[in-house]
């Protein structure tokens, strides 16, 4: 999707601000969000692409206002609810309970957890055909604007590049994020000249490398 998360090339976000002696987390809840997210993914409640999509689909103003781990929390909630493992009402009720009982530790029954979830993945298609491109090939990215998840950023659409590396077949995020299976296809590292991406606004002698799936690419016309 063409979302505000697709930040490459945007103006208006100011200088890069660094924090001296930054702690690993700025608050305890951030570590908990990270733990809950990684454990949930490990138990296959959702996959990394669905997780990323859950962040991208946040309302644009919310995305920009939220901190990094607030976005994580939003996507964990969204995905667990989508999977039917939780309801928004349950969450709201539990928040209300915790607010009403500030000291209370809610039940943290330990031990028995249900077995990890076997995702009902649609059957994988036959293993992909031989890669269409090889290092050195000139390609042009497709000018597509899908409503769902994609990893072809806007700044690199409809642009010419050269295959730099062939990484071999990899899970396709555009389907995997939406419960349509991994459908692996060849992944390439593609090198773009700065001038191709940014025109006269480019800095001198710049190149950008992106990892792009085969279906994002076409052979460049000579």
């Amino acid at each position, binding site marked *: 999707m063409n979302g505000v*998360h*697709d*930040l*490459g*090339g*945007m103006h208006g*976000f*100011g*200088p890069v601000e*660094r*924090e001296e002696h*930054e702690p*690993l*987390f700025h*608050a305890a*809840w951030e570590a*908990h969000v990270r*733990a*809950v997210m*990684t454990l*949930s993914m490990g138990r296959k*409640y959702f996959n990394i692409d669905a997780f*990323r999509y859950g962040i991208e689909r946040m309302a644009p103003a919310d995305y920009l206002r939220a*901190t*990094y781990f*607030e976005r994580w929390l939003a996507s964990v*909630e969204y995905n*667990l609810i989508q999977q039917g*493992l939780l309801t928004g009402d*349950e*969450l709201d009720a*539990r*928040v209300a309970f*915790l607010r009403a009982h500030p000291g209370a530790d809610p039940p*943290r*029954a*330990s*031990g*028995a*957890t*249900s077995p990890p979830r076997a995702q009902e993945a649609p059957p994988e298609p036959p293993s992909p055909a031989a890669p269409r491109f090889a290092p050195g090939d000139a390609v042009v990215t497709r000018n597509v604007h899908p409503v769902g998840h994609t*990893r072809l*950023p806007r*700044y690199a659409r409809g642009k010419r590049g050269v295959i730099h590396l062939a*990484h071999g077949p*990899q899970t396709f995020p555009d389907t995997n994020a939406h419960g349509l299976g991994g459908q692996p296809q060849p*992944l390439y*590292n593609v090198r773009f000249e700065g001038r191709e*991406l940014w025109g006269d*606004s480019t*800095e*001198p*002698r*710049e*190149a*950008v*490398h*992106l990892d*792009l*799936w085969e279906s994002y690419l076409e052979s460049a016309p000579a």
Partner: protein
Amino acid sequence: MKYDPEQEPYVALRTKALESLLIEKGLLSAEAVDERISEYERDIGPLKGAKVVARAWIDPAFKARLLASGAAIAELGLPGGGNLVVVENTPTHHHMVVCTLCSCYPWTVLGLPPTWYKSFAYRSRAVREPRAVLREFGLELDEAVAVHVWDSSAEMRYMVLPERPAGTEGLTEEELAALVTRDAMIGVARVAAPAPSGAAAG
């Protein structure tokens, strides 16, 4: 992206609510959460990456294998090399890493990412004006140096092998590793030569 203490109570509450529900439902165990969090507390940051860099500096054959495939880090007993690509900074080519779409980061070698790496400013600007960004980090590149920005759009992870600073000929592998910073392996800084005692050479 900034940390806003006023927002914390609600988010903290909501996180606690989520976690407690998942535990109650048997979807996660409290022990697993606690264990995962204590792993973060033991996070060693970029130490693994620094070891890789130091070894590459002193062992040309290892360096060649590393640049051919990140899987070579297994030789140092390190996991996570399967999707790792190491790119080498030289006097004429400078590499830096970003993730414009989210905040992908080579955490298996560098630990958890700093907030600036996840900031909208870095994500938006690194691909469009890398030299300007590097300048803010205090790294001024000559115009003759080519800049390569690696935007991590898939599950491949990129780490920069920085240039070995002059004056480090006599250092041990461990002393070299101690010089290597996280920022140098992201590609937004050079590795500084050791301070007073080392004699400049080479």
